[in-house]
């Protein structure tokens, strides 16, 4: 009789552990399905063609796979921050001896590193087996790709934090973050290489940070951005990272002042 409650506790712990595992498998499954949809979609697109806008099928599939992977690295730091703000935890966080934004950034990068090994690598293997991923065009492209990916991930987290800070001002953070996701999905090149877009759109995206999130690193890998274009592109990425880093901090400082005024 006494044992029963302890058995119940053990079972409940199993359920908690299972919940985490379930999320992992669910997202793996979901991304794999997305990859399959992309595969069949692009196969159908190339049914009677050898190239679309100068891009061959295998390059397009490589692009689609890498872009989908990179797209998984959109942050959760903003949501975390929004949660802290909404539930008041931010007040305690502000008292602690670190900068809250830096803490969230560090945690987020840690989470993404773990995602990379736990999810991205296995998914890449799946993609290589079933869809086909071209090798990088050159050693230079491969190393530049690595640098560019790190910058892209940093920038994604910073943009996410910016949206998180905005939740000082609105309650519907969910809506805001979905809006942000939609904009990024369209403008970052997560769906198709930006070179397929109309010219005016490409011109606009030159002046926006979103291309740096997905298009730049992946296009470096597939060789769409050629050797001479690599370093300027990475410099632009670097510029956006710096700009967002400073901007988020300023906005945060301003918002925090406002909160204190309200006696929070």
């Amino acid at each position, binding site marked *: 009789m006494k044992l029963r409650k302890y058995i119940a506790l053990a079972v409940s712990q199993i*359920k908690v552990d*299972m*919940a985490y595992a*379930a*999320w992992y*498998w*669910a*997202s793996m*499954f*979901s991304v794999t*399905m*997305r990859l*399959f*949809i992309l595969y*069949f*979609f692009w*196969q*159908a*697109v190339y*049914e009677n*063609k050898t190239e*679309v*806008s100068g891009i061959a099928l295998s390059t397009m599939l490589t692009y689609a796979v890498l872009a989908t992977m990179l797209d998984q690295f959109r942050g959760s730091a903003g949501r975390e921050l929004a949660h802290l703000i909404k539930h008041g935890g931010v007040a305690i966080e502000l008292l602690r001896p670190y900068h809250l934004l830096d803490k969230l950034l560090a945690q987020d990068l840690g989470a993404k590193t773990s995602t990379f090994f736990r999810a991205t690598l296995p998914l890449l293997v799946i993609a290589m087996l079933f869809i086909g991923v071209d090798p990088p065009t050159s050693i230079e492209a491969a190393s530049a790709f690595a640098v560019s990916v790190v910058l892209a991930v940093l920038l994604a987290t910073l943009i996410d934090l910016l949206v998180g800070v905005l939740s000082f001002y*609105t*309650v*519907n953070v*969910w*809506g*805001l973050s*979905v*809006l942000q*996701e*939609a*904009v990024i*999905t*369209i403008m970052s090149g997560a*769906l*198709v290489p930006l070179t*397929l*877009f*109309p010219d005016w759109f490409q011109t606009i995206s030159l002046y926006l940070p979103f291309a740096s999130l997905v298009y730049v690193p992946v296009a470096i890998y597939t060789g769409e951005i050629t050797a001479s274009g690599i370093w300027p592109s990475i410099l632009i990425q670097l510029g956006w990272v710096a700009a967002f880093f400073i901007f988020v901090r300023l906005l945060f400082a301003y918002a925090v002042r406002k909160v204190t005024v309200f006696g929070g």
Partner: protein
Amino acid sequence: MKRYAKLYWLYAKNHFKVMMEYRMDFLIGVLSVFGQQFAALFFLSIVFRHIESLNGWGFYEILFIYGIAFLGRAIHHIFFDNLWTIGWQYIRTGNLDRILMRPVNPLFQIVAERVQQDGFGQLLIGGSVLWLASNELGMVWSVMDIFVLLVMVLASGMIYIAVNLFFATFSFWMIDSLPVVFAVFSLSDFARYPMTIYSKVIMFVLTYIIPFGFTAFYPAMYFFEGRGFTLFALATPFVAALSLVLAYRFWLFGLRAFASTGS
């Protein structure tokens, strides 16, 4: 029945009061759904700048399929969004016990406790896409066709609801089955494109196991001439009804299992 209608009205009124308090958030919500759908359409239109047809399907034919999917999804999104939250908002928190105490169908209460206003954006965009596509395709609508369209859209919504309910029911055993629901729902994205582009296995799964094929592609085939699949198109309402009955039975089974452990 009348009592339930009245109850739902009371719930909804309550909800709209809250909504009017946060008008800005309502706008953001609708906009966000807009953006989400727009991304999908944008992707398609960009690709179609470079090709004439996808596996024999034209741009507006695919738009038409999209439109039906959006509308069905909107019904699910607006009125049955709370099905997503059964695990973490009702079972984990013990809220379900509160609901079981009342002399009203528990599923009704869960569903009625939320009207997801964001879905209206979906309704709007689905309607416009459908209208645009049918215009471009030169479709002529008789009264009968419009009636069939309504039935099809309703059936599409019912399938989304049934699938959601069926997999949310697993929460009775695993506390929160949201990951499972999420994973299964990622299959619904397949349904946005003509199913002929997929392999036989995928078509089979989406037709006979998780019937997402009936949320968009098959019902759309009723309105296209000479594309085949007529039998599947006509089966749509029946598939929807069957799915819903199965899902509801499973829910009742889960509820009994839950109540009898007394947890």
